[in-house]
């Protein structure tokens, strides 16, 4: 789960990270009031879950409260990478002498959180890693001991040869690490970490991504989810306990298991179609889940055919068949459906489907080809 910059900054402030004053606004008037309180030149920043906000025109300087109102009016409602800006962060435009990068990511290879710091901040860290890897220090942290003071100092001195600044930075590392652990993060970064002309070290931008598996035990973090910033169909799916990701294709896919779901989408593409979504109905299926899944998929006008691919292990195929029958009785389908199922209770499932006017296939490859043909206007094989 991603949270907004202003939320990440609130968390980091709570751990003591120095961050210039600022607040979030939903209207131009609110933005103006915040600018008035700050009383200096401010930055108005779009709060959306997308990178490249600056390039898209979602980050602007404003010298006066009036200008802040005008700029906020332009940014609010703007579309950035398909997302509507609903909030802006208005924050003190700190003067910058130098910019650095500080991040903690959960690293799969070392199986540890890894600090990545670079004196070349303010730009895409992947680019720095590719072009000038010597400008990045990587330090894996054993979570059983946590970030130790000497490690924090090593990181600090890598950024700043000056001891005062290195100490200030190492303190921020510790605060960032504590915030990372407490929020169940998979990524926490400050980019840029700046030094102001009078020597203060401060965080100007912050990003935190939370491991979804943590949300059950961190209700306060879970409450930071901004559903208005997400695709509505994905929100609906999450409430129905389905894992769903919307795409732009024409074949709606309903599959059990993430790996099989991806492989099904890939096969749709292989045969010349485009998957409309990723959807995993999960292991212990019940008919209700299938009903929700069909509701979400049929609401997408791009979907020209629906493909079920179910390999019954824990999932009972008769549950899926019952779900299909119930769902289509409630909302008759307007697009063709191809059902492939095999495994647990297959005979019962086929019987249920045939009695209700559906046909069932057993071969994944054939089912995908048929669905693609139907979606692209060809005749069924």
């Amino acid at each position, binding site marked *: 789960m991603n949270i907004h910059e202003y939320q990440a900054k609130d968390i980091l402030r709570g751990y003591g990270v120095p961050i210039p004053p600022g607040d979030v606004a939903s209207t131009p008037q609110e933005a103006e009031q915040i600018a008035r309180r700050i009383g200096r030149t401010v930055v108005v920043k779009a709060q959306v879950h997308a990178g490249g906000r600056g390039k898209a025109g979602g980050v602007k300087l404003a010298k006066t409260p009036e200008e802040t109102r005008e700029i906020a009016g332009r940014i609010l409602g703007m579309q950035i990478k398909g997302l509507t800006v609903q909030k802006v962060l208005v924050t003190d435009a700190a003067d910058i002498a130098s910019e650095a990068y500080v991040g903690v990511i*959960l690293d*799969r*290879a070392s*199986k*540890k*959180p890894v600090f990545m710091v670079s004196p070349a901040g303010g730009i895409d860290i*992947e680019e720095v890693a590719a072009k000038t890897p010597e400008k990045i220090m990587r330090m894996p942290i*054993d*979570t*059983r001991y946590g970030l130790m003071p000497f490690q924090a100092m090593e990181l600090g001195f890598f950024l700043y040869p000056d001891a005062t600044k290195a100490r200030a930075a190492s303190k921020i590392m510790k605060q960032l690490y504590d915030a990372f*652990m407490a929020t*169940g993060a*998979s990524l926490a970064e400050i980019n840029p970490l700046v030094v102001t002309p009078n020597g203060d070290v401060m965080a100007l931008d912050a990003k935190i991504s939370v*491991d*979804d*598996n*943590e949300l*059950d*035990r961190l209700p306060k973090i879970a409450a930071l989810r901004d559903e208005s910033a997400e695709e509505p169909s994905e929100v609906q799916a999450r409430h129905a306990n389905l*894992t769903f*990701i919307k*795409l732009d294709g024409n074949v709606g896919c309903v*599959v*059990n*298991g*993430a*790996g*099989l*779901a*991806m*492989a099904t*989408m*890939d*096969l*749709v*593409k*292989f045969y010349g179609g*485009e*998957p409309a979504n*990723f959807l*995993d109905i999960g*292991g*212990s299926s019940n008919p209700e889940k299938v009903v929700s899944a069909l509701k979400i998929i049929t609401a997408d006008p791009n979907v020209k055919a629906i493909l079920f691919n179910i*390999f019954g*292990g*824990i*999932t009972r195929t008769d549950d899926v068949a019952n779900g299909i029958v119930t769902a289509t009785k409630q909302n008759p389908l307007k697009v063709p459906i191809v059902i492939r199922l*095999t*495994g*647990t209770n297959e005979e019962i499932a086929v019987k249920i489907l045939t009695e209700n006017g559906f046909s069932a296939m057993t071969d*994944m*490859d054939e089912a995908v080809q048929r669905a693609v043909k139907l979606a692209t206007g060809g005749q069924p094989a």
Partner: protein
Amino acid sequence: MSVFIDKNTTVIVQGITGRDGSFHTRQMIEYGTRVVAGVTPGKGGQKFDDKVPIFNTVAEAAKETGANTSVIYVPPMYAADAMMEAADAGVTLVVAITEGVPVLDMTRVYPFVKERGARLLGPNCPGLISSGKSKVGIIPGRICTPGPVGVVSRSGTLTYEIVYQLTRAGIGQTTCVGIGGDPINGTNFIDCLTAFEQDPETKAVAMMGEIGGTDEQEAARFVQDHMTKPVVGFIAGQTAPPGRRMGHAGAIISGSAGTAAEKIQAFEDAGMGVARRPIDFVELIKARL
């Protein structure tokens, strides 16, 4: 032969009285697995289905039964503790089926288990099955048949699909191992490839990877440098958008890293067979046996 488990494997089930634990314990016993103990704190002294003794702790279960393996079906927030408890009790194989374990928990579990010399499989995995001998986990037994192919995969149902197609084509399996879909797991592809390379009955390996991380790329280099047996690979997630978690916590393209294209390229560079579709495994494996 087989890898990791065989007829002599003796199993403790952690969470044996839960919904998933009890269902799959019956399935394992039906397949022939030697389930010798269950653990549910507070139910020590009782018996599961009038057969399997239940203990309060894994330490007690291991001491009383001498079991060498434990399988975990406890809820995600307790799974990390369960894995460490099993390793601390001295079992040598810990299989964690549980999905949804916080990844930060695994940063503590992994070194803890390693220091005690146990092998961890999972979490978020279907477990493993040695055809005709033993199964630990949830892989449906009826889709497998004994034969010469080792199977290793990051996914559950996709593995079933491919094993089912192999079985239908008359190609049996030594052992099928699901390593799980989480970013930090106990056993990786290289661990399994090493075991299959050493197993005299395994003649070829089918390997199913997916987007996210670099485990497949490292496995490809291992195949090139250390394997004498043929390996056929498949990568799921060619159509996955970057930055999105595709169901499995580990199936995510970060920035430009972990794409299906780079993994497939790594397979090709290593001279492995590459299955473009699940069905391709049948012909590619056949040609290499």
